[in-house]
């Protein structure tokens, strides 16, 4: 069922590589169903070979699905006109090395059917945005990985896209570059652009994205708003000095405990112990305080991916 308000909708998408009978087939995506809401900055995560790039390539109509369907901005990926509203930065972007940065962007602008005047001004604008104005007339062949990545970003935002699909955009960028990219993404978000963002750098994803989806071995194992996913993990409980009775009641459920120098306790309890913490707080007023415990994305990621691997291990 296709929902309104989603920029990307994927339904039971499967991609199997290899059709020659004597070659091994590889299932890169297995019945993937996913929706990316409009206006979201969606982080698409997964270990190497999980199928992230395959998904993006399917969305960009660079490869064809074995089964299932996808809609991008409400249109089929093979709709060429739809791409006028999309910005795409491929994994390790490559450009014609004999062209200058400006020439390449002008070719992209022509493909996007910008008028000649608009083309020129917009090319200058995006060069400025990615900090490459000084290298506008340099040949792309001489650019470093980071400079190439910046030009890749420039061509992706050339058309003020409604949807920006970025495949590993942070790779190759120096800390300044990463910060600038973050700013670009925030600006795009402010302009109402939805961002579909695929990365290995979890700390950046955590900073930039408001939604995430985790893919592992072609299966979507987790999908939703990042804050909701990360707040589920547990509680940080602090017990004042002299509150040993209260601490004793809670220690049974605690996943970790630490005695402070002042005699108080710092405890970590799972989220399902919240009721018990509440009753202890009532029984010992003023002695116990609690704060929700937020998992880092990295912890969350490894927990989720690890859990799946464990399940598979048991199954095997």
């Amino acid at each position, binding site marked *: 069922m296709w929902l309104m308000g989603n920029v990307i909708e994927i339904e039971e998408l499967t991609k199997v590589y290899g059709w020659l009978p004597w070659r091994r087939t590889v299932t890169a995506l297995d019945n993937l169903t996913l929706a990316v809401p409009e206006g979201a900055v969606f982080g698409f995560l997964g270990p190497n070979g999980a199928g992230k790039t395959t998904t993006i390539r399917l969305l960009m109509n*660079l490869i064809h699905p074995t089964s299932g369907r996808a809609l991008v901005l409400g249109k089929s990926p093979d709709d060429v006109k739809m791409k006028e509203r999309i910005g795409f930065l*491929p994994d390790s972007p490559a*450009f014609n090395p004999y062209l200058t940065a400006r020439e390449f962007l002008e070719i992209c602008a022509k493909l996007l059917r910008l008028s000649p005047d608009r083309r020129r001004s917009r090319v200058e604008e995006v060069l400025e945005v990615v900090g490459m104005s000084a290298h506008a007339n340099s040949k792309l062949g001489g650019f470093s990985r980071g400079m190439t990545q910046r030009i*890749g970003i420039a*061509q992706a935002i050339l058309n003020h896209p409604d949807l920006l699909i970025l495949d590993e955009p942070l790779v190759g960028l120096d800390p300044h570059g990463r910060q600038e990219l973050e700013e670009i993404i925030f600006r795009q978000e402010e302009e109402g652009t939805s961002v579909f963002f695929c990365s290995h750098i979890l700390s950046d994803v955590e900073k930039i994205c408001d939604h995430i989806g985790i893919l592992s071995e072609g299966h979507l194992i987790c999908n939703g708003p990042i804050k909701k996913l990360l707040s589920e993990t547990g509680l940080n409980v602090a017990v004042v000095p002299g509150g040993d009775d209260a601490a004793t009641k809670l220690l049974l459920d605690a996943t970790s405990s630490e005695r402070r120098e002042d005699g108080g306790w710092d405890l970590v309890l799972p989220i399902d112990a919240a009721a018990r913490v509440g009753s202890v707080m009532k029984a010992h007023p003023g002695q116990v305080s609690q704060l929700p415990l937020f998992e880092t994305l990295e912890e969350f990621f490894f927990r989720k991916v690890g859990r799946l691997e464990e399940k598979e291990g048991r199954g095997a």
Partner: protein
Amino acid sequence: MDRIMAVAGGTWRRILRMPVVYFLVLCVVALVGSAYRYNMLSLGMHKTIMMDTSLALNTLAAILVAISITFEIPRELRSGVATTLLAKPLGRTQYLVGKLVGISIAGLVITGMIGVGFCLVFITAFDRVAMSMVQGHLLVMGSVIPMCAVGVLFSVVAPDPLAAVLTALVIWFGHSTAAVLGGIPVLYGGITPDFNIFNLKAESAHEVAISWWYILLATLWGVSFAVSVLVVSSSFFSRKDLR
């Protein structure tokens, strides 16, 4: 059309910015010019030999341009340049047409430069240029389009070294089978190529009059054949998964 020309522009600019192209053109013209010195070795046939050598070398240049596309498209697909372009509002057929137009323009410029260079050499040596020779060079230029189309076809169905070999074989086949297949309608010139249409090198060298009507028909055949080859190429390419 703008999009096709945008892709074409990137292609022909790439080729025409290679210094080696101009070096090769210069070498070809110099080689042909040096044939002026062969009057003794050829019993006074140096003029004919110069004309024919220029046409033969120009044909070789056209074939090399056609083969170069068999490396160009797979390289773009492998490196991701094509991915970047195809992620823009550009159809796969438009991409192929753009590549063909771009490589054809590059081929026409290169063969045109060789033709003009040789005409200058010829004027310097003999004070006049035979019209048949100009027509011969125009036919060589016309052959660039269908030969490049064959290169495009193989570049989308085969890996690059194999595509180059297949393209060279088909160009050879198209030049060599007129006497065997020439009488079979639809097959020869319709389905299989007849590049011999453009091969009037001997006639040009012997200054046999070639009608402009023939040149026009030959060019039209080249365009028409390129269209049919491009349709087949596009059918393959639209089903291809790009890495």
